[in-house]
């Protein structure tokens, strides 16, 4: 059992971390009332920037490169998401449309520039990705240590810490109260003197930052290079986590961890005798079927923030 956990938990953590970051971004954006189908594109942008920066500056920053890379990717992700903010907040674009465009645009730009800069469709492998580490002290705790604190990525724990920070920000600070108010009833917020547009801009930019972070963490922990197939569907899984988690930061984190667990189980169970004879296809679809069952069984109805997806037009009723 402990053996299984020991091989399960670390994979769950590294698989989930990028989803957690990105889903948190989705939570911010959607809590403020801006639907963000563009998470996939934000991740693509993050992965692209993370890898390119890493390749270019590995010599300069040495072992700090991956850290600087994800910070830069976060930053560029934030800037990139301004497009979504401008379109859906200021220009009253249909937010789903704008999100879909973000997805196409990010992939287009990423691969176009890759070809432009590297003369080929995919970059080389980075020399400074993230590596697993043991967390000092904690790793030595018996049983718990090996399961949770040995051979893990620091980024995984950062993701979990971020989820708690996001929860605190959203549910305990004035900023969070305002942000949620804007997503529930923008006109009420407006009459209370809250600048609805500014809040939504901030929320979308936060989602860009976190999406960029998620994408770069994915690229630098799992893939090591960038191509058109680096991010395929992770952003949509993150979106699913946002909804699965009922637009709550901790819920989204839980959902992302659940996806990671289901994925890992489908691989690990191949090695478990009882499950060995189960046809491969059932293991392959298991994570997705489990998610549906979980939703149908005990998660059930999730109410989106009331004003999610509605452009706020001052003075309309």
């Amino acid at each position, binding site marked *: 059992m402990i053996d299984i956990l020991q091989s399960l938990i670390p994979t769950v953590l590294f698989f989930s971390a990028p989803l957690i970051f990105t889903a948190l971004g989705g939570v911010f954006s959607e809590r403020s009332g801006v639907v963000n189908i563009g998470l996939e594109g934000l991740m693509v942008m993050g992965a692209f920037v993370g890898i390119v920066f890493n390749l270019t500056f590995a010599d300069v920053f040495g072992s700090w490169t991956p850290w600087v890379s994800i910070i830069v990717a976060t930053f560029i992700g934030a800037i990139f998401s301004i497009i979504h903010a401008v379109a859906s907040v200021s220009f009253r674009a249909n937010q789903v449309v704008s999100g879909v465009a973000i997805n196409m645009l990010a992939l287009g730009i990423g691969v176009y520039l890759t070809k432009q800069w590297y003369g080929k469709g995919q970059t080389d492998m980075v020399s400074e990705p993230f590596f697993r580490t043991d967390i000092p002290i904690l790793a030595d705790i018996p049983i718990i240590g090996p399961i949770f604190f040995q051979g893990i990525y620091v980024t995984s724990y950062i993701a979990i810490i971020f989820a708690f920070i996001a929860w605190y920000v959203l549910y*305990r*600070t*004035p900023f969070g*109260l*305002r942000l*949620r*108010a804007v997503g*529930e*009833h923008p*006109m*009420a*917020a*407006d*009459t*209370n*003197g*809250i600048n609805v547009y500014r809040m939504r801009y901030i929320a979308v930019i936060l989602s860009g930052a976190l999406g960029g972070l998620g994408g770069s963490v994915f690229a630098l922990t799992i893939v090591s290079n960038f191509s058109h197939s680096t991010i395929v569907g992770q952003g949509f899984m993150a979106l699913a986590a946002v909804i699965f988690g009922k637009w709550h930061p901790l819920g989204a984190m839980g959902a992302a961890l659940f996806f990671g667990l289901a994925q890992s189980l489908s691989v690990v169970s191949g090695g478990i005798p009882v499950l060995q004879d189960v046809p491969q296809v059932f293991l392959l679809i298991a994570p997705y079927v489990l998610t549906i069952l979980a939703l149908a069984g005990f998660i059930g109805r999730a109410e989106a923030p*009331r004003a999610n997806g509605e452009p706020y037009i*001052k*003075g309309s*009723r």
Partner: protein
Amino acid sequence: MDHVIEMLNIRKEFPGIVANDNITVQVKQGEIHALLGENGAGKSTLMNVLFGLYQPEQGEIRVKGEKVNITNPNIANDYGIGMVHQHFMLVEPFTVTQNIILGSEPTTKSGKINIKKAEREIQELSDRYGLKVDPTAKISDISVGMQQRVEILKTLYRGAEVLIFDEPTAVLTPQEINELIEIMRSLIKEGKSIILITHKLKEIMEVCDRCTVIRKGKGIGTVNIKDTTTNELASLMVGREVSFHTEKKKAVPGQTILEIENLLVKDARKVDLVKGLNLEVKAGEIVGIAGVDGNGQSELIEAITGLRKANSGSIKLNNKAITNLNPRKVTESGLGHIPQDRHKYGLVLDYPVAENMVLQTYYKKPYSKATVLNFKEVYDKAESLIKEYDVRTPSASTLARALSGGNQQKAIIGREVDRSPDLLIAAQPTRGLDVGAIEFIHKKLIEERDKGKAILLVSFELDEIMDVSDRIAVMFDGKIVANVTPENTNEQQLGLLMAGSQLSEAGVHNDSE
């Protein structure tokens, strides 16, 4: 200068309409100033201009004599202007406290919301002005009256000196209205000034000092309440004489149309809301259900109309059991329903007016044949209803969303009455409407009665109940506790019955027994 607020020659246009055309309002320090006008006259618009939600095309605003430029609600707040909106501006999943502090939250040093401090401050305010609220309750769980008190607290919390109330009483029960009037008086005593928008002339006469009348976007003038009468106000507002008492012949009840026996309805949490209710409505009579909001009226109606499951008991329409049939079947059994919440139930706001006019009949000939819609028929019908019911809309293809509340209501009433149902349920049919529209609707209801239809009227307005009903059933705690006739009772007694007193205590004799 004793004017706290002056709005001079204000003009505000919306695409295709001039909502405010050169209107002037001057509010004195410490007065309650009424703003009166028909539905769509431009009252809310004018107040939204004052509150900084809209920018006027022309005109100027002065606060205490000083010319100001109010470009957003924050600035209005800074000038001590607070507004309680016609449609509440409350975030439902938030608590009372969260709603009140939203936008000016007290924080601890670490940047966390200081919820304790906020709750304390709110408690103080609420004690001082007699605004009873539960600071930790969620908005979605509290009554409409309390929601309104939250709105008022919101303005006070921000230190408002001038409070704008946009139709505050439209959604309140008689008791709550009395409470509100008390609250307004205590606010004035504390040195505040109030602008009150209402359609209820009685209230204006009772509490206001002066009244500015607006008609179709234009200012008609300001009168001193002391020097005027309700009739004068009404004719100023609509530009003609209005009669308040609805003329009607004596009812000639026929056979029983609606028969409810031992009806029991629970809500999702398994709490009984309607507790073994019995009720009968005959052809050719209007039965009014009087009662304080929250005594099971909505659930009763929803159970009859098939929108909610009845847990036991029976409902018969035209001697046919309709208990727990789906809404379509119930409608087809001869029911018309003017719902309480017109935005939620009554209309598909994003459909054109015309398509809303066939919401109950679209699947029938001549509006459709073999599932294919016949738009010509739909629009012909709509045009004729629009004319007959005086629905003011640019065209039949205008989205229902664009209509004013009163006109939306007229559209619904037209649609439901036109089908000529055997039983017409009218839930709060005149809520938020001006006297002209109310008069019109009352006339329609009585016309239907005279055609031999059964009418069930649910209203929190005792005036309306007394005026229109042939028979009054008082509902309290999920049951009909008394059956009386308007001739044999008065508002005083009804009020007591609605509060749960026994018939004998209230000194009324029960007509049905």
